[in-house]
């Protein structure tokens, strides 16, 4: 999907909003330690900033109960050796603060704390879209935005509607959502997000080489994607599946209120009643 060309000033300047999953429940049992993951991430962010001096990167962390901006490259001090270290320190401190804050929020809100808790993807996507909208309104010359989600936690079903709304608004603004799954489970949300918005969905097999994946696939700007061949899923199966048995069906019954699909005639819809 191409961005609005009228707003370009150079076609390979990009704004990458990276949504990082900081769900402690996931990272506690992840194959890749969070430290290594973070290192890969920082290198990747640096690579993007090196590709073009006008590139911008924003990092948003999504925790269990909250999300926050961690890093914004436009805040950084001018280039220089001292500057880089200071920036890195600032970023790490910010992450720590955020995790502490998230811990407090989760402790207060006991319902969210469960072993299978999901990261707050909907909140993070909304933050990303707000930032991007602000960039759009900043004038005619701005970079081409895209969102990269690094997700490991499972999808939270209660966020379904909110996530779909964010996806549709990204589609409307022509912002591709790329997804890189660092966990063991595929994410249906992100797969749909990437498909609908024209982004790339990838589940790397070799997590030690995460940086290589990020650099080879996700560092490409939107203009170059038109002539580069990136990993594609084989196609999304759009057939509906019934809500009672999760089987794919071709003909079924549909609730007239919420449009949920069932394979057998039911008096009461289990989704909306």
């Amino acid at each position, binding site marked *: 999907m191409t961005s609005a060309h009228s707003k370009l000033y150079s076609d390979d300047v990009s704004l990458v909003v990276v949504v990082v999953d900081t769900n402690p429940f996931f990272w506690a049992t992840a194959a890749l330690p969070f430290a290594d993951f973070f290192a890969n991430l920082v290198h990747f962010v640096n690579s993007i900033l090196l590709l073009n001096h006008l590139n911008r990167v924003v990092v948003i962390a999504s925790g269990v109960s909250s999300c926050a901006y961690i890093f914004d490259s436009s805040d950084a001090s001018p280039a220089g050796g001292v500057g880089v270290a200071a920036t890195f320190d600032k970023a790490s401190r910010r992450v720590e603060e955020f995790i502490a804050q998230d811990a407090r929020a989760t402790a207060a809100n006991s319902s969210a704390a469960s072993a299978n808790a999901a990261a707050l993807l909907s909140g993070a996507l909304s933050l990303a879209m707000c930032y991007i909208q602000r960039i759009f309104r900043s004038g005619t010359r701005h970079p081409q935005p895209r969102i990269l989600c690094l997700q490991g*936690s499972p999808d939270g079903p209660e966020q379904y509607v909110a996530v779909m709304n964010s996806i549709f608004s990204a589609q409307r603004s022509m912002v591709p959502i790329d997804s890189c799954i660092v966990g063991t489970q595929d994410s249906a949300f992100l797969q749909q997000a990437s498909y609908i918005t024209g982004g790339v969905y990838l589940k790397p097999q070799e997590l030690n080489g995460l940086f290589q994946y990020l650099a080879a696939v996700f560092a490409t700007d939107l203009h170059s994607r038109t002539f580069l061949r990136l990993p594609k899923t084989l196609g999304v199966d759009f057939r509906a599946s019934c809500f009672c048995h999760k089987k794919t069906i071709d003909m079924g019954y549909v609730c007239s209120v919420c449009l949920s699909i069932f394979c057998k005639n039911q008096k009461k819809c289990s989704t909306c009643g």
Partner: protein
Amino acid sequence: MRLNVHFRSIKCHKVGSKQARSLLKLCGGPDKGGDYMFEFDNAADRDQCRDFVAMVLGQHQGTIPPIPNIPHESVASTGLEQLTAAEVEQRMKLLRENSELQKLHMKFVLGKILQESEFWATRKEANNASKQRPAFKSAMLDLEPSVDGQTNKVTYRITTEKIHQIFVEKPAVHRAFLDSVPEKMSEAHFWSKYCEAETLLRTQNTALAAAHAAVDELLAVFLKSDDILAKEAKFKIKQVDPTLDMEPDAGDYYSRLLDHRILRDGSIQTVDTNSEFVMRTLSQDLNQHAAVVLEGRSHDVKLTDTKTLAEELARLKKEPSSCYNTDDANHERLVNVAHVTCMEDLQAPRNLVYAPLCIKNPREYLESQQANALRSLGGSNDGKKACNCSLSTDDAFFHLIDQVSSIKANRLNCNVVDSNVALKVFNELNKGISYSRSHNLKNPHENILGQLPGQTRDELMDHWASIQELLRHFWLSYPITSAALGDKVERLKDAMAQIYQKLQDMKESAAPDVRHEMSQLVKPMMQAMDAAFSHDLEQQQKCSKGKGTSPAGLETRRVAWPVQSSI
């Protein structure tokens, strides 16, 4: 004196026009002895001869088989079909144009499987000349005077068709015609006056026009703007719903000020627009003409005599009686208008009661969606759920914070990726990309038929067309009420059996790599024929069981067309 001409040497025949002598001409071509011209006493004789010649020529040219000599099993009801020359010609034309039809015709009628009449019976609709009434021409009426420079004469040619159009487009002229012809003047005189008026208008000389109009009353009618049209326009506008935006439509009635004053010949109107003797502008003429054409001809008016034509038109016009607005109708309209135009800001606010959507069990809902999405990911899910974390909340968070501290302490490792690992990653990505590419690039146009060799494909299509035709006649023949039908069914069955055998052979002789596709293609055809055969068998058994009772009495007609194969 006798003249011997072989029909073989005759290529075509022509007839002379009716007004002239009744002529029939047989053309033989330059090397075959030239043309022969016959003159008859009257047209009826000539027509009879013509039909006969057409028939024989048709037979000789091979498109119509000789009318079959009814063999011994015939029934009196199917006699020789009386074909008119027109029908014969039509059939020949159809056969000439449609090669598929010709092939079928050759196969079945010449092969004596079907009779000519049966073959064409189902195609009657194609034979019927469309009984459409030609409407008015879309081109605007232009009298196209030819001007002779030398003698300064302007010649107008007026045909009956044009007169018809003039009457419909210009009702004032129509009225004048009804009034003046034949009491006051002859038709020729009327039309010459009309042409005079046309010439005057074209010159755009208002003064001259006024002068003429003052002298000649009829010219005045032609030169002045059409009052009937103006009245009609006024009436139409009153009928229109006042809530409509009339601004774009006001041109015709209100004034000529709103259009560009472009006349028919492209020039701009320069004279004073308020004068009565001004030509109507192009837009007005165009609109009027379009309205007339779209209304169409409501009946078949015979364009024989102008006077009768005028009277016919006048009569028809009276029938849709112009119900001028009565008070009641007006009042009703106003009431309706009041309903339609409601000003939204003056209405009270309507708060609709709505029930907010709530998902009772989001997890279940999500899982059903997930099933779909994850299936298409190739089942890379392992089926394993995330291993349940046994840590408590605090522990989990502590663990994470530890990790972050270690980052801060250790700074960044310069060697973030090992080269072996990087190579593995690249290989994996390459494999994935090329696999998905080859999967997506499969030629969408390749289908089963494309894989077969050309000849086989043609044969199959041929068989398919024949089977369709045969089956159609087969099913139409049931219930069998007469011996002829029974006969026909037998013939059809034989033909189908032959094709069946041919299909079997084709299937067996197919090359091994396309054998599966062949059998898939052939299957529906054979199934259809099997159905026909079994139905026939049933009928025969029933027939032999119920001796004496006619088979037609109890059966319901089975009309099942063969299922279209996915070609």
